[in-house]
């Protein structure tokens, strides 16, 4: 097996990869035609496999959005009779219809294989004990990593989310070596290790962490690595593209290899829908190349990233994307400033005096929109000195203002005062009064 899970696929030359993608794209378009949505759309626009003379011709096809998925809920994208499918995953659908993805046996096998390949690239092996700390059920991180780690051959513990003491007990009972969890949970789990007086290096066999499902900064990853004393590898996926196993970091941590034999990726300017120049940040648009029950063509992920230049020393030829720098839809605007929560987080992570938790509250105060940032005063740094705290507050204000070009109000709060972040962290609370809305 050596260094790769699937050497032939992972190390294809550019021309081999292009030929592979072109073949798979034709199959995908031909399959998609079987679905009510794409069938109707292609007919109306006179599109079909005959239009595909080369890979670039994918640009002739219209993009697919989350709204399209919602409007054609639940079966509009299905290419086969429902009884040929064997699983679905869907979003919570807090606004309007949820989005649902169906899988047949081939799709699930293909997905599990991609997750296994991802874990292998990060350094996990069949000899590992893999503890999956995330919600099972509809959330794809649970079953996605479960089947992936099983496919890898690791002993897999479906630990589920929460209950930190039980998680640590499982790690000790079964000698867990690899953990997958969302980053904000790991920083919290560390405090429980501390409380219990358990030394990770001495008392556990942990050797590798996999983090994902929640946007996070490089500083946050570094912090997790420092706390646990082991490497943390970045995982990227989204439920519309199966879930985890879309792009993953290898041992060199030089960005995330996007599995291009299974997905065709484009990066576009979200306003003009035109491709951005190579290496620039834009919205990731993806086409499934190996999914049968519900292929998606040019799906707009809303995730912002860029292709990273150069080759990776690991020898894998699939292009790498940068960590997600934000989403086209989590940006908020205060006093005309476009702000991503990640910008604020990046700054806060440089202050060890404040905890890992923070909350951005957008409020209308005396008719003016204000950005209030609540941060917890860390027990480890508090010295009982008023001046030190005031100085800290002022430095946080200044650094955030320099980054986002808006002066925030920074409020120091007691440790534990902010809501505990269980699932995907909610970092922004918009309490503004929308005039005329």
């Amino acid at each position: 097996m050596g260094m790769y899970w699937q050497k032939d696929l992972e190390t294809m030359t550019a021309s081999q990869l292009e030929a592979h993608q072109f073949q798979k794209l034709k199959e995908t378009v031909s399959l998609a035609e079987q679905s009510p949505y794409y069938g109707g759309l292609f007919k109306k626009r006179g599109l079909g496999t005959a239009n595909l003379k080369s890979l670039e011709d994918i640009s002739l096809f219209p993009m697919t959005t989350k709204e399209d998925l919602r409007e054609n809920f639940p079966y509009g994208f299905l290419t086969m009779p429902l009884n040929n499918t064997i699983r679905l995953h869907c979003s919570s659908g807090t606004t309007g219809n949820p989005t649902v993805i169906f899988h047949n046996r081939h799709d699930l096998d293909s997905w599990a294989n991609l997750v296994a390949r991802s874990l292998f690239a990060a350094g996990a092996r069949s000899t590992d004990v893999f503890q999956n700390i995330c919600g099972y059920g509809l959330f794809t991180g649970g079953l996605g990593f479960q089947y992936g780690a099983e496919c890898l051959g690791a002993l897999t513990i479906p630990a589920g989310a929460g209950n930190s003491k039980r998680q640590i007990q499982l790690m000790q009972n079964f000698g867990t070596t690899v953990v997958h969890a969302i980053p904000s949970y790991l920083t919290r789990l560390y405090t429980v290790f501390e409380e219990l007086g358990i030394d990770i290096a001495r008392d556990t066999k942990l050797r590798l962490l996999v983090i994902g499902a929640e946007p996070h900064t490089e500083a946050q990853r570094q912090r997790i690595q420092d706390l646990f004393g082991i490497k943390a590898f970045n995982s990227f996926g989204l439920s519309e593209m199966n879930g985890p196993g879309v792009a993953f970091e290898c041992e060199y941590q030089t960005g995330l290899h996007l599995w291009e034999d299974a997905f065709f990726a484009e990066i576009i300017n979200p306003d003009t829908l035109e491709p951005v120049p190579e290496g620039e940040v834009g919205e990731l648009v993806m086409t499934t190349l190996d999914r049968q029950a519900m292929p998606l063509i040019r799906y707009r992920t809303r995730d912002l990233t860029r292709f990273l230049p150069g080759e990776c020393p690991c020898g894998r030829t699939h292009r790498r994307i940068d960590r997600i720098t934000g989403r086209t839809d989590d940006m908020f605007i205060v006093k005309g400033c476009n702000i991503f929560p990640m910008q604020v987080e990046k700054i806060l992570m440089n202050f060890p005096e404040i905890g890992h938790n923070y909350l951005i509250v957008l409020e209308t105060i005396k008719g003016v929109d204000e950005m209030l940032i609540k941060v917890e005063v860390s027990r480890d740094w508090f010295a009982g000195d008023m001046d030190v705290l005031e100085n800290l507050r002022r430095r946080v204000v200044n650094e955030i203002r320099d980054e986002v070009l808006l002066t925030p109000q920074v409020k120091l709060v007691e440790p534990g005062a902010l809501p505990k972040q269980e699932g995907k962290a909610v970092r922004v609370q918009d309490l503004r009064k929308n005039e005329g809305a």
Partner: protein
Amino acid sequence: MAYQVSIFLENEPGHLEKVTTVLKKKMINIRAMTLSSSSYGWGILNLLLNDPQKGCDALCEAGYSAVLRKIVVVKMPDRPGGLHDLVEYFSRAGINIKNAYATLVPHEGAAILVVDAENIEQVEKLVEEAGITKLTPNEIYRL
């Protein structure tokens, strides 16, 4: 060295009460206190306790950012000019007081001044050299 317990508190109704609840449950007695607030919605509560270590541990356990902070506690006569004589000395010695609070010890006809300063070790040394009556930790905690 003597210690006070300093606690970070948000300036919100009910927050002080939660602190006193913790101390009451642990049967810890407060001998003196001062509460200061910044203009940004938070402040620091300083407590002179009969058992600072136990009090600080209990508050940390309850989730607070609480810390033991070194102080010097000096005795002064309970009469007009009592504080003045002390402060005059501090002033001449160039000592800058960061925070201070006082309480009466009626049965001794005296009062005590709790001093929190930037360079507390130096303050302690100066106080000793000047022959000012300094309370030992045990004397303070048994007030």
